[in-house]
């Protein structure tokens, strides 16, 4: 069977990809997806752990994460739309009204 370390590595890689996406991509939507990717990488590791530890807590947390992520998505997109109304762009590097 697959050893735990693989899952961990997988989740680590996914998390890193997520981080990279968050930092590198210029499209807000994709940036947001990267965040989701990070969350899911965490979910993987959580599930893996909970399986290997034979404890439910991990999976419970996963459910919560998924739920929260959904809420987050809703709010995030709402904010994004509100933003888009006033200045129609989703390019990360065009959003620097506030700085310094």
């Amino acid at each position, binding site marked *: 069977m697959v050893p735990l370390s693989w899952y961990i590595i997988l989740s680590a890689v996914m998390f890193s990809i997520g981080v990279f996406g968050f*930092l590198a991509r210029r499209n807000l939507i994709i940036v947001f997806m990267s965040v989701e990717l990070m969350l899911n990488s965490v979910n993987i590791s959580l599930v893996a752990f909970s399986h290997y530890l034979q404890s439910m807590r991990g999976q419970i947390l996963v459910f919560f994460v998924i739920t929260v992520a959904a809420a987050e998505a809703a709010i995030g997109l709402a904010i994004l739309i509100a933003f888009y109304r006033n200045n129609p762009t989703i390019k*990360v*590097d065009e959003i620097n*009204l506030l700085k310094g």
Partner: protein
Amino acid sequence: MKYTLIPLLPLLSFIINILFGRNFIKDKAHWIAVPAVAGSFILAVSAFMDVLAGNVINLNIYNWIVSGDFQVSIGFLIDQLTAIMLIVVTSISTLIFIYSIGYMHGDGGYYRFFAYLSLFVFSMLMLVMANNFLLLYFGWEAVGLCSYFLIGFWFHKKSAADAGKKAFIVNRFGDFGFGLGVILVFLTFGSLDYAQVFGNAGSVVGQTINILGTDYDLITVICLLLFCGAVGKSAQMPLHVWLPDAMEGPTPVSALIHAATMVTAGVFMVARCNPLFNLSHTAMNTVAVVGGVTAIFAATIGLVQNDIKRVIAYSTVSQLGYMFLALGVGAYSAGIFHLYTHAYFKALLFLGSGSVIHALHDEQNMQKMGGLKKYMPVTYAVFIIATLSITGIPGLAGFFSKDEILYRAYLGGDTGKFLWLLGTAAALMTSFYSWRLIFMTFHGKFRGTHEQEHHLHESPKVITVPLMFLAVGAIFAGYAGIPPLLMEHGDRIGEFLSPVLGHPHGEGTHAEEMMVMASSVLVALAGWFIAHKMYVKNPELPRKVAEMFKPFYNLLFNKYYVDELYGKTIVQPVLKISDKVILGFFDAKIIEGIVNGVPNLIGAFSRKFRQVQTGLLSNYGLAMALGALAIIGYMIFMR
């Protein structure tokens, strides 16, 4: 109480005059001042009588400063020395006060003048009556203060203002040493009280003090420090520069402060400390040499000056030199004796010149005088008397005291002989410039403007009467100390002072004494002869002589360029450094630079680093990620 009143009366007069003079008393000021000082004269006489009766008064009034083991009181010591000084100070003051009524008549600051003068008398009396060093120092500084006020009395004249300031600051140089001396005295003797200090004087012989690694004889150091004060106050070299300028003050001031009393404070102080000085050969010699050199040095300058008061001023410096010479060779009584006689004839000279200046409406240049004798006979007469007296013509006051000094010097070993030569040479010059003064002023024909000539007149009684009184003094004051040679036990003043000042050591033969006496008389006559030749017989001669020794003449005429020297080496550099270097560079650039630099630097940082905050989401995320990474790296690295 009686003794306390002596200084208190003048102080009272000062307070009243200064507070109410301006609005109420105005030109009635002398109605307060003269009685006050006269009163203290009477009290002084009675004090003198008490001392004569043989009881020395030493009373402490109250503790002035108490700090730990340091204790000093305000108290009076009236012994023979003080008694003499009291008489000199109060008597001359009284006369000069009266004189001033006429001389200062109509001056805007009439009340101020009498106020300051009274304050001076108070201070001077405190100085001579003090029974400890600190109170002496008090009087010392206070008379300096008054001299500052009175020199700068006509303060709207820049020269007067400068002179006043100069006098005070130059004196500060001396007092700097004096003050340290006082401190050292306490640290050595654990007291500042004359009685205790002089009592234990012997106990510290041989002790040394370590200054910057080298050991010096303690007593010598103390004496020299104290002597610094004397040098400043009595205008000895090298601090003599302030006295000639002090002539900016009204003439009565010059007479009272810068001839008769204040400038002799140094002499008084050294005489007062004779128990200390006696213990240090070095100090004594220093005093003697400084005195001798100053005597001749000032006399040479006096030869060529044209300002009538400056001539007398230099003569004063020179005479003070004599006094120190006397002190230096251990003839304290002689020194005090000369102080006492000098007070009269020098005051007389000043007041006389004052009367002249008054007559010529503040003309002081002798080149513009001449032939005054027919206009102001009284002044002329007293001038002659004073000059005879100062030049040491037998029978007048100056003769006795000066002769005593020269004789004592002569007996004082090799240095003594040398000093005697200096003294005699100085005597020659003294006689010369004194007569030169007379001839230029009173003989020949008048060289001033016509309207001056038109107003020429003898001064009023209120001026001439004090002159006459002083003239009497200038003649007879000397009979207090007739040399034994001429009269057994003639030296009454010496005897009188001996309890305080002891007897001068060294005895000479009659022959020697004769020789000294004769020589001094001889040079006096020689001085008259030369002066007469140059200024009466053929008035062209002076210029010729001046031409002949041009550089030397200029050197003398410019007072050896001492003022210029000080200006170049001390005054300017200090001012320049403090302006350009300290204030301009160090304070403004370095210190301020640091104080303002640090904040500016931080501000610059701030402006620079705020650009890190680009406002871009990804950069913010990057910062976080890098931060996390950095911490992880740091932790791994740590282990």
